[in-house]
């Protein structure tokens, strides 16, 4: 099928782009990707998205965005793009076997959880290693878990797990956290949470048959010394990698892996292809900045499709 504008991704960037594009009469098609609603669907309280005096739930916020897009007439299809050809006409191939063509494309594919990269991490994926506290916290009632990381995601996961587990140990490489101050204050005040500073996970250990986690080996960043820490679960929250693999080498990336966009614009190196949200943002990575970039992308796609110059002279 062919559309004027296709939007890849169903997080705040994708849905905001879709809402603006629909209102501009572009009749956009939004392909949700593997995780409809994106990263916010596995979070809990959202307190920093403006417009809501009381905390809201991430999954609820994404349902609202989807419903708003549907009300604007956006066509939403649950499909996963597996291959993309961007030059000489945009052509996408999908998990469902459908081929999609478009005159313009907004890439809002977001970012995927980053793993530690240890062989033991893969080996214990079924038996105590997770990147989703809201999915797997259930299994750790009354147990001890570690959370690896120092950003907002790690702190949120630690606080969520502290409501279930007996003890939560946050493992961080540095001597301070990157998370928002309000989140740090809650973490440090929580009686069930302790922090192991200057530490990284060197190995995940456990039983062989079945493969169940029983501990981690920590390496002290300062002197390289190793120590064992018993735990029942390992939650990895060390950041996210932009989801760009389907584009191969077609689009220039920044050193951190985000899609390179023109200054003050969502335009990529390929005319008619725009990028918004975490896939293109190595600075802010917030729901509200993703939504803002989605809006920019839709406005720029509208100008592109009308044959107008993208940048409005100041």
């Amino acid at each position: 099928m062919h559309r004027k504008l296709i939007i890849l991704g169903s997080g705040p960037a994708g849905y905001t782009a879709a809402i603006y594009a629909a209102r501009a009469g572009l009749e956009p098609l939004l392909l949700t990707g593997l995780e409809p609603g994106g990263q916010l669907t596995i979070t809990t309280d959202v307190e920093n998205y403006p417009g809501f005096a009381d905390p809201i739930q991430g999954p609820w916020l994404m349902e609202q965005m989807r419903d708003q897009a549907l009300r604007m007439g956006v066509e939403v299809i649950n499909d996963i793009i597996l291959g993309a050809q961007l030059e000489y006409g945009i052509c996408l191939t999908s998990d469902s076997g459908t081929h999609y063509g478009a005159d313009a494309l907004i890439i809002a594919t977001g970012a995927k959880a980053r793993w530690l990269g240890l062989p033991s991490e893969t080996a214990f994926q079924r038996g105590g290693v997770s990147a989703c506290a809201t999915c797997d916290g259930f299994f750790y009632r009354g147990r001890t878990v570690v959370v690896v990381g120092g950003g907002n995601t790690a702190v949120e996961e630690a606080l969520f797990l502290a409501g279930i587990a007996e003890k939560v140990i946050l493992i961080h490489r540095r001597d301070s956290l990157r998370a928002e101050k309000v989140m740090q204050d809650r973490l440090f005040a929580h009686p069930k949470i302790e922090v192991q500073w200057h530490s990284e996970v060197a190995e995940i250990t456990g039983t062989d048959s079945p493969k169940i986690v029983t501990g981690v080996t920590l390496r002290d960043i300062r002197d390289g010394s190793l120590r064992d820490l018993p735990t029942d679960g390992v939650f990895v929250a060390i950041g996210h990698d932009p989801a760009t693999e389907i584009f191969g080498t077609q689009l220039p990336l920044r050193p951190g892996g985000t899609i390179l966009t023109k200054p003050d614009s969502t335009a990529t190196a390929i005319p008619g292809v725009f990028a918004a949200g975490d896939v293109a943002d190595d600075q802010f990575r917030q729901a509200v900045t993703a939504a803002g970039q989605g809006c920019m992308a839709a406005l720029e796609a509208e100008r592109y499709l009308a044959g107008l110059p993208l940048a409005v002279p100041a």
Partner: protein
Amino acid sequence: MTTDVTTLDASNFDSFINGQGRVKVLRFWATWCRPCIALEPTYNEVASELADTAAFGEVDIDKAPEIAGAFGIRSVPTVVVMKDGQPVNVVVGLNPKAQYLQAVKAA
């Protein structure tokens, strides 16, 4: 759309596992797990397409924690493919449909 997936709990699990056919597929899920909900339509499609190959069931881990415990489930969603009563393939997390089709066909 009629579903080809049997909802399983302690009352019907054994009869499902011992029922007709060599290959049984189980989807472990929970109502509060968003990736589980995202997987549901994909799983139902796989069940429809491979209805002649295998029997498909789903286990809500809140309603049947003893089944999840017996399978050593520590992460949801998890799909377990069983052949002749033994688990042969396990797919953890939310993945593209092709991966589930392959896991069932390989059994």
